[in-house]
């Protein structure tokens, strides 16, 4: 069984983690054309090489990111989500009254 190093809990058996999919910045949902939106939702890059993935340590519900080489299955590093997301995200109101 592989080990994965959680930034909060340290190295643990990978069975303690939930895979959260490839990290993939969301395009602006109000501006992107339908085709690009569909690509974002339904298509994954599935790259052979180093990818960034979401992982969650189940026992502590701690989400973090991992850089993993999909060819060798080596995890290059893991890091806290705040490294990529360090400010509040807001969505411009197109119309409406925030009901």
């Amino acid at each position, binding site marked *: 069984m592989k080990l994965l190093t959680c930034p*909060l*809990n*340290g190295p*643990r*058996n990978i*069975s*303690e983690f939930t895979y959260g999919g490839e990290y993939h910045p969301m395009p602006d949902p109000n501006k992107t054309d339908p085709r690009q939106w569909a690509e974002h939702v339904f298509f994954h890059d599935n790259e052979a090489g180093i990818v960034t993935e979401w992982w969650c*340590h*189940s*026992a*502590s519900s*701690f989400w973090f990111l991992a850089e993993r080489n999909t060819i060798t299955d080596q995890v290059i590093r893991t890091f806290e989500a705040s490294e990529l997301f360090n400010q509040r995200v807001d969505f411009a109101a197109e119309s409406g009254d925030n009901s």
Partner: protein
Amino acid sequence: MTHVNSSQPAMQNQRRSPLYRRHTELKAEFESLGDASLVSRYGELAAEIESAAQLGLADLSALPRIGFKGAGAPQWAISQGIKLPESPNHSVVQDDGALVGKLSHQELLILSDLAGSSALVNSLEPVQIESLKQSEPAAQTYHLPRAHSHSCLAVTGTAAAEMFSKVCGVDLRSHKFAQGQIAQTSLAKINAVIVRHDLAETPCFYVLSDISTVEFLWDCLLDAMQEYAGVPVGVAALRSLAARG
């Protein structure tokens, strides 16, 4: 907190550990703690102390415990005079015997002492969401009902770490898992928070897990303990071991 020994069925209290039927079947002697009951002992105390020193399992679910979470929680806790460990997954004993652990940079777990008399926990227990709301210095501090979301078991004795290796993939042996250390991990396939909090010289691990699974966990642990002659023990034995120091 009263120490009235009582053999009355635990169910006469409003608040009931999911394990009270198992305790009753084992002819436990209960003591009242608020509107709940705690197993004082199952049998003869001297023998039970020796069992606990070897390998014991105690249900401490009736003892007070509470959690706080949020970006402001550590700051707020310090303002309440709480001593915090430096890094997550560690715990610190407070002056009144309570144990305060950090589960993350923003999450605290507070466990009462074995008497259930910790002034800190008891002062926090009635704190409801309203009183924390927005008001400085409690901004971004949120209460977690740990006493109800999680059961609290204690595994005691020199064989404890070895027994855990049958149900848990984290190395809990003394030289690898220090006093005060916390592991959030999987125990018999359920999520658990394990805190090492020795009773003087006797190794002791608190196990907090989802309260709906505690009967399953209790049975799993007793099964795993059999090999080392582990048995259920009451809080009286734990208190005696703690006082040996």
